[in-house]
Each structure stands twice: as structure tokens, then as C-alpha cells.
């Protein structure tokens, strides 16, 4: 029994660390409707500020006030005022993309402005490793004591506040129906700002309290803790703070018991332990009714029809043709320059951009066309790459391996789609995230998949007598794949499936009402998307020729969504632009070192913040702006030439776009 308690008791503070982060997520979600994946980044900023201030001789209390009481709520207020105020009535994707952008941008900005802290984070009150007393012969340290007490007290207090009429009810009412709340006299803006300040204060507290667990203050540590803590939030249904607290503690205790009782060195132990939080997340998402699709919360939501799907504006024929010619010329020059003018490393960069474009096409299909959130596209790409590598090790021709990589990824896509059929909104994204984490922590670590520390060699293809080993030849091969897959997605977009996907994106209920089999469509979308990502991943493997599972971890999935959403998620062109732009900027930024090395993350992170105003993407918006000016100029010239003016007649026919955006 004593042994049991010696495992159980340390699990409580361990679980409280989860609960603290999870409660922050739930608080933000309940108070703003945003699933704030940047919560870990906010906690990191406060922990960093606190540590640096203490290292510079500030008293602990002063550093705490500066980092937690002032800086953290200020950051939260800025996020609310500049960004999330405008997403209050938006769909899950519009709320998620800026949060992902912040997750990437906040550490980058912090690194540029403040730098990094390499020293041990300072303790808040108690000495972290000093033993203060024993319970059932189990020593309790300062870190465990402070984490447990603060978590229980703060989460308990928050639960009381959220139940109160003055604060909690107002916050929830603003999230559930801002218009109804305003009709009842609640000032939605002020309430929302208060909610963000409170949740950000919570993030700051979590950061400073939990920092001593780690040997240095690192944003990736907080993000990793947050990702594991999502399971606790899911147990609470993103609603109940007491259940979240219980879920977090239960998770910590269960992990300790698994580590304590499973046979040492067994496959069960090595597989189950790292997979546990993510398996719990998946089960909680599927099991809880809260996450089922179709739950309309806003009683006034039916006052307006659903927001129309994005469609590009109609263009004058002259401008449309001119735009196409310009695109063709730029693309041709790009290809020519790649092959003839630029150094060989730029040939690699553009080939990388093309390969990345193929992976991004998978996001265009799933998210842009179908409105489904996936946070595991890099995992699908990894499945394709590792399959191609493993098959190459067994003397299967790599050309065939690339295609089979796509097939295996497609199968995985279908498997991932199945549990999402009952889910809606952010839950779909989180379920895919749990799959990505399971792959990172278990699936890809086996010798038969990732081949361990040695990784895998993926050769360049040879088809018949034609070898694609050379960089130029491989460039053409990648371009060929992009053209074929791009045209296929384009045809799909214009066909029946594309229209069904557009309906799915607009309103699942409406789509079902007109006879679309929504479940089948989701499986089809995930399967096709995963297949494309798998082929892209296999081509990436063949491009760099040496891969490891770490090249496809969950963080890449988050970055991919941010990049495509920032540039343009609705069109094939957007995917190509995103891929090439990312590769080119990566090469340009890589010449910068030190603080500015994370500029690439900052650029795309900040660009993703514009998704709220411009869901078509910044590049698509930019192109639209230029074409608007071009149309004005054309009209002006035509008037000058004596041709009839006026919007209805200028330029003769105006092209009519309909259906999905491009």
C-alpha cells in the first residue's frame, strides 16, 4: 500500500501542472470562445520576463507584479482588442488560425526583443526541491506543494467566479450570443476584454509557477505541456473547471501509476506511457457529447443566414486575361531562372517549394474546399515519406514507393476521419492533433516505421532508363507531380465533389438537408487530402534523401496550417504560392542569425493574424487589390478612348464567378 501511495501522491502535483494549463484553456474558451493554443506561449513570456527580472536583481515580488500582474494581462488585452474581438461570432477555423499564428509569433517576437534566458528559472515562493513534509512516507517538495496549492485554490476560485452572475454569466453570455447579451444590457466589448485579461493573468501565473520544472525557460516546453494538458480540458468538456481539475489530476496520477506498475522495458510500457495523454484526449473528444457536431449555441444564430462562402470578385475580361498572362510569364520566368540563372542551391529551394506546395494542396482540399480543420497534415506527409523509405530499403523502386506512400497515407486519412464523423468545430482539429502526437510519440519511433536514430534514406527515382537523380531532373519530376495533382484538385473543385465540399464548408446541416452524405464526404476529403500529403512527403524524402520522423512532427502540421491560411487556403494557386513563398523566405531568412533567425515564423505568424479580416489570405488579398487598381485604370483608359463608360458596360462582359473561391 505504501508503494501505491508513493506513486499516487507525486501524481497529484504532476497532474496539477496539467490542470493549471488546461484550466487556462477552458477559461479562455469559456470567456472568449477561442481555443487559445497560444496560451503556452503567453505563459512562456511571463516566465521569461520573471526570470530575467530576477536575474537582474529585481525583488521576487516586483518581478512577479511586472511579469504576471502587468505584462501578461496587457498582452491578453492587446490580443483581444486587436484580434479576437472581431472573431466573436466567427467559425472555429477563423478563431483557430490567429491562435496558431500567435503560438508561432509570440515566441519569435519575444526572442527578438528580449532574447533568451539560459539560467535556471527562479522559484516563486518555496524552494522547488526542498522537502517540507511527508505524507504516508512520501516526501513533498516545495515545487509540488506550491503547484498543488496554487492550482487548487486558483481553479476553485475561478470556478466560483465563472458561476457568479456578475462576471461568469456575463462572460458566457457574450460568447454564446453577443447580440442577445447586448440586448440584455451587457457591454460585450468590455466583458470580452476583461475575460482576456483574466485568462492572460492566469497564463502568466502558470508560467511563473511551472517554470522551475524545467532547466531553462523555453517556449517549446510550455507548448508541449499545454498540448498534453488539452486532454484534461477535454475531460472537462471545455466547460467545467472542476472536471478539468479532476481530469488533470487523474491524468497525472494515471501516468505515475502506469510508469510505476507496467513491466520495465516492455513494449506495453514504452508504447502506452507516452501515448497515454493523447489517447485520453482522443477518447474524451469522441465520448463527450459536448464535442458532437451541430450543436448551435447562439439562440440568435438563425437570425442571419450562414456567412457566404468566399468567392473572388468578378473581373473585367481585359484584366482577367492580363492577370493570366502575367501569371504565366512570372511562372515561366521562375522556372527558367531556376534552371538557368540561379545557383544550384536556389534550384533546391524552388524544388523544395514545389514539394511543399504539394503538401499544402492537401490543406487546400481539406480546409479550403471542405472547411475541415486538420492539425496532422505533416503526419500524413511523414507516413508517405517513411513508407517510401522503408520500401526503398526492401528494394522496391522508389517511384512505386512514392505512390504507395500516398496510398498508405490515404488509408491513415480514412482511419483518422472515422472518429471525426461525430465531431464538429475545433474538436475535429484536436482529434487530428492527438493522432499527430500519437504518431510522433509511438508510431514513428518503431524500427519498422522511422528506423530509429539512423533514420531512412530515400533515393531519387529512376523510371525506365530515365534517372531523376540530378537536381534539374528532380525539379521537373516534382513540377510534374504538382501539375498533375494541382489539375486534379482543380477539377475536383469544379466537379460534384467540389460543390459538395463547398456546401459542407458553408453549413453541414444545410448540406445534409439537400441530400449530401456528410459522413461519406468527410471520409473522402480526409482520404484524398492525406493521399496528396503522403505523396508530397515521399517527394520531400526523395528530395533531401535522408529523413527522420522528427522532420514531420506535430509542430510542422501547425506551421503548415498557418502558412497556407496566411497566404491563401481557398485555391490551388494559394497552395503553390504558399509553398514557394515559404521556401524562398526560408532561404532568405536563413542568412540571418541570432535573434532574427525566427523571422520566418514571425512573418507567417503575423500574416495569419490577418485571417480574421482576410480569410482569402494576404497574397490573394494583395492580388485582388492590384487587380482592382488595374480595373480602375482600364476604365479610365477606355473613357479616354471614347468608349462607353459606367460599371455595367465598361469592359464589355464581366466574368461571373460562382461556387467556391479560387
Amino acid at each position: 500500500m505504501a508503494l501505491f501511495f508513493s506513486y499516487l501522491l507525486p501524481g497529484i502535483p504532476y497532474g496539477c501542472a496539467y490542470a493549471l494549463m488546461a484550466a487556462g484553456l477552458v477559461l479562455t474558451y469559456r470567456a472568449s470562445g477561442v481555443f487559445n493554443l497560444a496560451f503556452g506561449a503567453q505563459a512562456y513570456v511571463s516566465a521569461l520576463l520573471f526570470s530575467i527580472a530576477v536575474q537582474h536583481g529585481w525583488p521576487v515580488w516586483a518581478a512577479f507584479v511586472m511579469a504576471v500582474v502587468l505584462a501578461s494581462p496587457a498582452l491578453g488585452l492587446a490580443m483581444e482588442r486587436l484580434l479576437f474581438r472581431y472573431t466573436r461570432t466567427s467559425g472555429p477555423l477563423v478563431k483557430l488560425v490567429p491562435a496558431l499564428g500567435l503560438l508561432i509569433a509570440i515566441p519569435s517576437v519575444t526572442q527578438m526583443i528580449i532574447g533568451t534566458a539560459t539560467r535556471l528559472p527562479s522559484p516563486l515562493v518555496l524552494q522547488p526541491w526542498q522537502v517540507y513534509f511527508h505524507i504516508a512516507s512520501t516526501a513533498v517538495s516545495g515545487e509540488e506543494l506550491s503547484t498543488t496549492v496554487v492550482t487548487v485554490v486558483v481553479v476553485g476560485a475561478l470556478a466560483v467566479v465563472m458561476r457568479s452572475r456578475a462576471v461568469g454569466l456575463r462572460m458566457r453570455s457574450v460568447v454564446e450570443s453577443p447580440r442577445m447579451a447586448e440586448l440584455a444590457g451587457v457591454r460585450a466589448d468590455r466583458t470580452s476584454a476583461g475575460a482576456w485579461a483574466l485568462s492572460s493573468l492566469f497564463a502568466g501565473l502558470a508560467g511563473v509557477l511551472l517554470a522551475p520544472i524545467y532547466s531553462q525557460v523555453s517556449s517549446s516546453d510550455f507548448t508541449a505541456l499545454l498540448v498534453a494538458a488539452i486532454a484534461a480540458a477535454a475531460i472537462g468538456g471545455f466547460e467545467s473547471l472542476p472536471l478539468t481539475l479532476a481530469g488533470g489530476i487523474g491524468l497525472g496520477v494515471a501516468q505515475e501509476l502506469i510508469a510505476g506498475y507496467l513491466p520495465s522495458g516492455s513494449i506495453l510500457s514504452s508504447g502506452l506511457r507516452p501515448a497515454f495523454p493523447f489517447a485520453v484526449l482522443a477518447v474524451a473528444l469522441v465520448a463527450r457529447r459536448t464535442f458532437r457536431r451541430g450543436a448551435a449555441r447562439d439562440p440568435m444564430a438563425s437570425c442571419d443566414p450562414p456567412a457566404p462562402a468566399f468567392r473572388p470578385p468578378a473581373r473585367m475580361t481585359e484584366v482577367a486575361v492580363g492577370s493570366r498572362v502575367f501569371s504565366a510569364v512570372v511562372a515561366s520566368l521562375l522556372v527558367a531562372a531556376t534552371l538557368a540563372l540561379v545557383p544550384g542551391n536556389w534550384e533546391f529551394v524552388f524544388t523544395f517549394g514545389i514539394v511543399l506546395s504539394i503538401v499544402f494542396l492537401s490543406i487546400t482540399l481539406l480546409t479550403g474546399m471542405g472547411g475541415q480543420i486538420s492539425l496532422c497534415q505533416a503526419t500524413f506527409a511523414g507516413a508517405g515519406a517513411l513508407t517510401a523509405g522503408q520500401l526503398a530499403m526492401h528494394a522496391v523502386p522508389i517511384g512505386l514507393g512514392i505512390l504507395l506512400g500516398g496510398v498508405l497515407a490515404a488509408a491513415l486519412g480514412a482511419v483518422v476521419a472515422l472518429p471525426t464523423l461525430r465531431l464538429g468545430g475545433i474538436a475535429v482539429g484536436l482529434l487530428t492533433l492527438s493522432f499527430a502526437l500519437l504518431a510522433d510519440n509511438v508510431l514513428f519511433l518503431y524500427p519498422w516505421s522511422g528506423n530509429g536514430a539512423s533514420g531512412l534514406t530515400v533515393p531519387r527515382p529512376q523510371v525506365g532508363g530515365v534517372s531523376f537523380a540530378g537536381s534539374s531532373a528532380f525539379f521537373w519530376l516534382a513540377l510534374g507531380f504538382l501539375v498533375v495533382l494541382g489539375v486534379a484538385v482543380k477539377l475536383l473543385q469544379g466537379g460534384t465533389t467540389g460543390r459538395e465540399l463547398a456546401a459542407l464548408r458553408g453549413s453541414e446541416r444545410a448540406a445534409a438537408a439537400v441530400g449530401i452524405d456528410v459522413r461519406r464526404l468527410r471520409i473522402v476529403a480526409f482520404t484524398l487530402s492525406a493521399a496528396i500529403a503522403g505523396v508530397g512527403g515521399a517527394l520531400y524524402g526523395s528530395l533531401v534523401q535522408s529523413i527522420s520522423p522528427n522532420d514531420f512532427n506535430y509542430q510542422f502540421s501547425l506551421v503548415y496550417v498557418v502558412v497556407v491560411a496566411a497566404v491563401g487556403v481557398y485555391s490551388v494557386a494559394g497552395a503553390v504560392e504558399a509553398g514557394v513563398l515559404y521556401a524562398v523566405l526560408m532561404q532568405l531568412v536563413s542568412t540571418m542569425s541570432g535573434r532574427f533567425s525566427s523571422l520566418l515564423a514571425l512573418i507567417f505568424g503575423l500574416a495569419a493574424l490577418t485571417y480574421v479580416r482576410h480569410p482569402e489570405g494576404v497574397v490573394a488579398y494583395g492580388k485582388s487589390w492590384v487587380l482592382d487598381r488595374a480595373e480602375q485604370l482600364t476604365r479610365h483608359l477606355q473613357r479616354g478612348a471614347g468608349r462607353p463608360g459606367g460599371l455595367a458596360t465598361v469592359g464589355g462582359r464581366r466574368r461571373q464567378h460562382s461556387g467556391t473561391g479560387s
Partner: protein
Amino acid sequence: MEADAEGRRPRAGALTGLTALVLAAALFAPAFTIAAPAGAATSPAGNTAGVSAKRVVVGALASQTGPLPANFAPVVTGAEAYLDMVDARGGVNGRKIDLAYSLDDQSSPSIDASQARTLVQQDHVFAVVGVATPSFTGGTFLAANRVPTFGLNVNPQWMAGPTMFGHNGSYIEFTSPQVQPAFLAQQHHVHAAAVLAYNVAQSQQGCQGTINGLRRYGVPVAFEDLAIPAPASDLHADVIRMQHAGVDMIVSCMDLGGDVLLAQTMRQVGMKNVTQLWNDGYSEQSLGQYTTAMQGVYFTEPNVPFEVTRLHPKVYPGMDQFLKMLKKYAPGTLPSEPALAGWTSAALFVAGMKAVGRNLTRSRLVAAINRMGSWTADGILAPVDWRIAHTGSGPLNCTAYIQVRGKKFVPVYGTRRSVFSCFKTPAPPTTSPIRLLNPVPAGVPPT
């Protein structure tokens, strides 16, 4: 081009762009040549890239930013310090060595692949001197293009060909039985050993080699956990199990953060008198920060410990020089394993240049180095036989053991003449004490 009756859109810009790419493909068809395989021999021009009458241009590639820059970035500082010293003395065969490009891969595999190509195809360096990264994706390209490459050997790409020179040999067999932990266990009469690693392939397989070595040499492994989630945030269950299993030696393949957490958790639960062998943390900076947690901990190094300069002055002139020049050319940089790897990498490159003479080409440089039978970087490293070091480990395995005592690292074991402890490998499985080669064989520093 208007929408049809069904509202079907005409082909928009994307399709046009893609069509344009196909057209461009036709236009530039003459450029489409079935290129030579990636492993093709270096062209004559490439063989002397970066070499002029008075200068040799080289580059470096390291993770200077990312999650763990301190474990990789100093390789560049070490290489720069050595090359600055050589240049200050007039260079090699009338040529100064210019480390003109120091690129950062930001710990990203795709950036690493891109940066390797930038060094070769844009910057036209003769060699890459000073590589340290967690994902050496660019190594495949460098090996295929036969670019002499020197750096910290922690990636499988170092085994990609005869032009790849890891700081202490290029062969890595992650899971092969390791004799060093077993020797330490026998010295401490260990009854029950435990091995801990992260749920990360490199960490797992490194410790699998430890387990294989302990078992091979008859040390009971009472507990193993090679699936600790990284970063470690709680190790109570592992520590309690080890305590109940009577573990008296722990080998850790975690990073410094995990190791410190382990030591602190052991202290909390009252687990005492345990021999600890860590793979990460041998640096003055770490010791200054975690003095209490690191007490009594052992480290093994393939090189002479930094402390020999203080303890055995003038016996290891190579290490004396490293510390002196690091202070001179990189003030503020503390000695560390990656800095030393950079230094010895540059030293190997320079030794190769000296052996080649004035007629410097990549292939001649590589051939000259691969003829070296006992490379020690002026008495810093255990001997590396470059005639076989690309494809296997030699018959001799030399290691320096270091223990933390107070605020100092202290070299331990070794022999009368050397800080190195040398073993014959592969030794037969045995439960009798592993025999040190005493005195150390000829060629092992300082002999």
C-alpha cells in the same frame, strides 16, 4: 469565358499558372538533361572550389539557434579559434584559411539541406569545417558531392562516405554494446543498474547500446525506461521503482534538464549512494548552475578532459593550446564539447592540408586524411584510425572518465601515464573485471 448554366467556373488563374509551367517546361526542354547521379564524382572545378593562390575559403554549418543551441553552436567558435591561430602563424603552404561563411540551420532539417547546398553551390567553399546539428540532412548532399566535411559526430550522415570526418571518427553504431558504462559499474561493484532515456530515437538507441554493454559484461540491469516523455517533467515513478529494485547505478541518456530533474527527485525521495553516469552536462557552465545536483556524477569523454591543463600542466600541450587560444580568439566562450569538436575538426582539416602540400584539391585532401592511422589532434583525442574510421570502430576503445567533486570536474581512473582508460574491443563477454590496458598502448595521449 462566362460561367455556364450550372454555374461552373471557367479555369482561373491557378490552372493558368500550372499550364504556364508546363509550357515553360516545353520551352526549356533543352535544359532538361538527365543529370549524373547525385553521387557523381566532383568535377575538376569543384575539386578546387574556394582555393586561390593565397586563400582557401571554407564554411561552417551549425544549429546556432533552435531548442538547444548550446549543444551545437560552439563548434563554429572552436573551428574559428583554430583557423585564426593557424592564419596568425602564416597559414598553410602559403595560404590563409578563411572561414568566410558560418550558416545557421536553426535546427531545421529542411534548412540544413538548403544551407549545405548554399555553402557548396553559392558560396563555393572548398570544405565545410565545423558542423554540429541535430538533423544533418545536408550531409547526404555533401557526401554525394565529395565535399570534405568536418564536425561533431552525432548523426548517421557522418557514415555517408569517405569525405565525412566526424570529430572522433565517423562510424556510429547506436546499439552496439558499450564497454564504458560496464567498466564504471565494475569499478563500483554495482549489483543493479538502471538505464533511462527519452522517448526519442537517438536517446533510446544510445541507451540501448548501454544496456547491451552492461548485459554483455555481466552487470545486471534491474530497471530500464527508454520511453520517458521529453522534456522530462516528472520522474518520481521511475526513481521509486529504482529505489525498490535496489539500483545502485544509473546511466542517463537524457539531456541536462532531465538529468538534473533525476538528481533532484532522487534527493527528494532519499535515494542515496547511487553511481550516476550522464551523457550531457560536462561543461563549466552546467556545473556552475547545478553544482548540488551534479555532485558525484560521472561523464565519459572521447577526448582529454579540460582539467588536465590545471592538473597536469604541459603534459597535454594540445589541450593547453585549445584553452589558451579559445580565451584569446573567442573571449567569453567557455570550453565545451562542441567547441572542442570544432577545434579538432579544424585541426584535422589543417593536418590534411599540410599533408597534401601546395597542390590542394578536395580529393587529395580526403585521400591524405584517410591515410592517417593515429589521429589525436595534437594529443587531445583518443587515437582515430582514419583508414577504417568511416566504416567501423578500431580495435582500441579509449575514454576519459570524469567525476564531479565539489565545484570541479576531476579526471578519474586512467593509468599512470594517461587520463585515458583504454580497452580492447570487442572484448569477449565476461563477468570478471574488464581489464584496462595498462600502460596505455603507444599513440594514446600523452605518449
